[in-house]
């Protein structure tokens, strides 16, 4: 009885909280006249692909076509993901299983940096990016994201669970440190890697800081920046709203798909997320 009631109440709350998602899903498919109907409608009546058509084709005439932002986003996300997973898992392996002199200091730094929000040091970051002369390059999008304390922490916690005997056995069989890492540690750490991939993807895919600060060239900016530019002056731009909804939906979908694929693994990783 308690369970049924609880399910009902939680279900209702959950449904209410996912209204924005339902809304954006409907809004993106509304034809022009439905977007500004009075009284406003929540659900779409005659779904159309006009907004997506506008997004991809009509904006092709503008200075920077939508497809360019999308392309940039995909490139940046793909490279950042790969880089974060590689660098974080390698660092996590060392911190968990290998003798390493300054381990205590590095670990302390990571624990402190868990609360790091890049927004707080945007000025020095901007200066560093300028000195490295990676403004208006993909490096400017990717490099600042590679250091991900949360990723290292989550993977390290997960590797801690792998028994040392297993790694020893590998070494006795003549595997090098690198082979142990690739053949034994990496496969066993898959759930954590999947989790980190998703968290990183969400961060990068939705990031506007790099585009606003480090990229002056419009052709190097990414999808969220484009969505932001559509919404920032939206109160008046009638045509923008449908396009913004369509673009917003395109931003949300990859996240959703990835999460659905990995939900089980994420929960598995989160079991080990405790800070002791």
């Amino acid at each position, binding site marked *: 009885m308690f369970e049924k009631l609880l399910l009902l109440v939680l279900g209702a709350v959950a449904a209410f909280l996912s209204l924005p998602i339902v809304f954006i899903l409907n809004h993106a498919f509304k034809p022009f006249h439905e977007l500004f109907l009075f009284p406003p409608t929540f659900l779409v009546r005659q779904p159309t692909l006009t907004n997506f058509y506008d997004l991809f084709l009509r904006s092709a005439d503008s200075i920077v076509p939508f497809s360019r932002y999308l392309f940039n986003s995909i490139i940046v996300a793909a490279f950042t993901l790969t880089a974060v997973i590689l660098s974080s898992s390698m*660092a996590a392996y060392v911190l968990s299983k290998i003798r390493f002199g300054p381990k205590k200091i590095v670990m302390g730094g990571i624990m402190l940096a868990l609360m790091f929000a890049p927004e707080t040091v945007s000025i020095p970051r901007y200066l560093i990016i300028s000195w490295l002369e990676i403004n208006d390059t993909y490096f400017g999008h990717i490099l600042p994201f590679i250091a991900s304390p949360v990723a290292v922490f989550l993977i390290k916690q997960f590797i801690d669970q792998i028994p040392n005997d297993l790694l020893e056995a590998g070494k006795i069989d003549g595997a090098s440190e690198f082979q142990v890492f690739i053949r034994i540690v990496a496969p066993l750490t898959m759930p954590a890697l999947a989790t980190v991939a998703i968290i990183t993807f969400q961060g990068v895919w*939705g990031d506007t800081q790099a585009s606003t600060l480090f990229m002056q060239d419009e052709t190097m900016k990414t999808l969220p920046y484009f969505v932001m530019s559509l919404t920032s002056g939206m109160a008046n731009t009638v045509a923008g709203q449908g396009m913004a909804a369509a673009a917003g939906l395109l931003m949300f979908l990859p996240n959703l798909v990835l999460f659905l694929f990995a939900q089980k693994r994420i929960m598995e990783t*989160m079991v080990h997320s405790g800070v002791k």
Partner: protein
Amino acid sequence: MKPELARTHTSTLKAGAQPVRALKRIWNERMAYLFMMPFLISFIAFILIPVIMGILMSFTSFDAFRFPEFVGFQNYIALLTQDTVFMKYAIPNTLKFAFFVGPIGYLLSFGVAWLIYQLPKDARDIITLAFYAPSMAGAVALTVVWQAAFSGDYVGYLNNYLLQLGLIETPVLWLQDPKFLLHIMIIVTVWMGFGVGFLALLAGFDTVNKELYEAGKIDGISNRLQEVFYITVPSMKPQMLFSAVMAIVGTLKAGAISTQLTGLAITPQYAGHLVLNHIDDYAFIRFELGYASMVSVVLLVISYIAMKLSYRLFGSKDGE
């Protein structure tokens, strides 16, 4: 400490060979250094150095063109004595915003996670997804939704429903009226706040030893609330700490929400002005980078204190 896996041993060289020994140790651990390299380099370049630079710059007057000029604590003194916008708006707004988004949002996450955990297993995933989805979509994508919902004219969704219900007589300018903006920022941020920390809490319930509940019953725990307080919370403190740290980051990052909602860098009458907006104002509008860095440092110190507090609350006694 766990036993470490390494075939290497520090060589037992005689005294007087300290640097040699240190180098030798590093050489022996060369694989570890190699593995750490990519992470460490980018950690130093994009986290450590920026923080140090921020601290150094906070003691200067710097306009991005001329070389920064050392001014000692002048920026800090100006903040405390002259910056009325900071004192009158940024601080009170941020305290209120952070209180609801931080601790209250955290308690909500915990409560919801606990309730979800009481559900049968097959229902959990879908309900979790519904709570997590807004955070997953992200603030940028959902700006479209919030702007349409809180639009100040008759076609705004909230206005329209309230008008139909007869609760208001004329449309309310939700995002422009200083009375409402901060509240809407809080609601929206809490709405999108069921993120990684929430997932960690949910998973944390699985780490609690089930036998403890049985033992608790024998020891006289009579209701669920006592169970949560005496068994669940102490058992999953590590998860609660991780989640608390994530809540702090989330609150810090959420500072941009006022700009996203209103499309303005500075909100009308500073109604939604948070410390993060104050930094952006001085950094990218007034180009007083030294002063902006000083505000950043203050913000970092505040969040550091919040983290220390979380460790006090949830940290294990021996660690830290």
